[in-house]
């Protein structure tokens, strides 16, 4: 009797799971729209891709205009999966890597997504499970999602309104104490808030994510897994990640790739994790990444000491939506579903899902004023978006 029941059970369950799998694959096949670049990106000229050449040239001349504090090294524009423009300056070229700085944070989120699909980690788990050094007594309930949403509550000032000299990232990167073990250096910071209460953009939270990834993968896998499971499927051959003295991969701040390769991370977001018909992250990962950090619903403080807490944020990526109390979205010249990776010294990875547009700017800026940096982005985004013909916009 029991045997018969077991047989019936499996007869029911197995076909159902096969059906679900087929359904998933069918959905993925329907979704797969854009060509994935193999060794080289397929190309289109500007007009074919729906740009006004004259207005696009205005955009280019603004971006590359010699300026005292803004210095563009690369412009790459991808439309519908086709490379429409690439241009390099100051000794950079197609195959030369560029420092990504905080653009690497978005790559961390992608990696967590890949690991979640493989069952190695889940966003709702506590950090303690994989990185007990953060909280040896196991009291804190910081989850991986809290870190992805920059809401751990760990004290950190990314860019200090009161005293720029005391901003944390400088010492997190360029001190002998932090270079011994970057995540541990962060873990020794005091806790300022309960997790999930206060949004606080922090390279420290991202550094902790690299330790969580290492803990989940184990010592023998962590140094090769990102290349095997993410960079190779994406075709990011140029990706390099420097390490601290403890062997932690500094994906939050000291990673390097060619601009054409970092554009592939943009394509991964446009395709919601589907690469050549292969699903790399869970189907709901993009919705999760796009969702404003819940802590940002708790209101904003115009006098926040951390100047970087000035915009809606998702899972290791900036969003173009209004937070409660904001008069307008951060970049009114761009669609509200724009996604934005930003790195110090002017690195930009802009993703426009409806227009299927990816814009990469690498740079060696030295502008101190946060207002001037934002104004510069407004100016170039306006020109770039304005160079799309009406039909090519959403």
């Amino acid at each position, binding site marked *: 009797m029991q045997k018969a029941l077991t047989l019936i059970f499996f007869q029911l369950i197995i076909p159902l799971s096969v059906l679900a799998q087929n359904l998933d694959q069918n959905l993925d096949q329907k979704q797969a729209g854009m060509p994935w670049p193999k060794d080289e990106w397929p190309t289109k000229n500007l007009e074919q891709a729906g740009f006004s050449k004259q207005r696009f040239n205005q955009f280019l001349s603004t971006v590359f205009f010699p300026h005292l504090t803004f210095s563009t090294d690369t412009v790459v524009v991808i439309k519908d999966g086709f490379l429409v423009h690439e241009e390099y300056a100051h000794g950079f070229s197609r195959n*030369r*890597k*560029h420092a990504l700085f905080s653009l690497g944070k978005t790559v961390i989120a992608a990696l967590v997504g890949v690991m979640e699909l493989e069952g190695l980690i889940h966003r709702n788990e506590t950090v303690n499970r994989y990185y007990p050094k953060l909280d040896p007594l196991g009291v804190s309930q910081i989850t991986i999602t809290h870190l992805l949403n920059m809401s751990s509550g760990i004290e950190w000032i990314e860019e200090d309104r009161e005293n720029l000299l005391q901003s944390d990232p400088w010492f997190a990167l360029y001190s*002998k104490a932090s270079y011994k073990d970057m995540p541990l250096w962060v873990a020794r910071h005091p806790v300022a808030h309960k997790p999930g209460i206060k949004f606080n953009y922090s390279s420290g939270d991202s550094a902790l994510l690299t330790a969580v990834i290492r803990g989940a993968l184990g010592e023998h896998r962590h140094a090769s897994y990102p290349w095997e499971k993410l960079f190779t499927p994406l075709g990011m051959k140029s990706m390099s990640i420097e390490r601290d003295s403890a062997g932690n991969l500094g994906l939050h701040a*000291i990673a*390097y790739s060619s601009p054409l390769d970092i554009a592939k991370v943009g394509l991964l977001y446009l395709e919601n994790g589907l690469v050549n018909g292969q699903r790399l992250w869970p189907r709901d990962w993009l919705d999760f990444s796009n969702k404003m950090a819940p802590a940002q619903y708790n209101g904003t403080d115009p006098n926040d000491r951390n100047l970087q807490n000035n915009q809606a944020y998702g899972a290791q990526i900036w969003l173009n939506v209004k937070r409660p109390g904001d008069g307008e979205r951060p970049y009114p010249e761009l669609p509200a579903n724009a996604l934005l990776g930003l790195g110090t010294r002017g690195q930009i990875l802009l993703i426009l899902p409806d227009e299927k547009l990816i814009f990469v700017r690498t740079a060696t800026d030295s502008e101190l004023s946060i207002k001037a940096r934002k104004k510069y982005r407004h100016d170039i985004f306006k020109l770039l978006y304005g160079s799309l013909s009406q039909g090519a916009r959403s």
Partner: protein
Amino acid sequence: MRLLLLFIICCALLPACSSDKESMSMYLAKEMCSCRFLIGQDDKQCRNTVRIALAAGDATVNETKREVTATAEDKSNPATFRFASNRFGCEFKPEVQ
């Protein structure tokens, strides 16, 4: 790094600024090593990238060992970064301090 200019102003005005001197040499050694040996830019271009910090420090590139040693302006706080591999870029070498 946008904070750089302020650090330099601080170091120029305040002689007792030792943690800033250390971070200056760490910055110069790390950024020069990655620029020269991982990115592959020439010496002139790399020095241009860190030019603000070079006003408050000095960087010596050893092409054979593929490493960069930097100090603060008064030759204190030496820091060395060595190129490890194309995948892992440059690494801090604490043993040569």
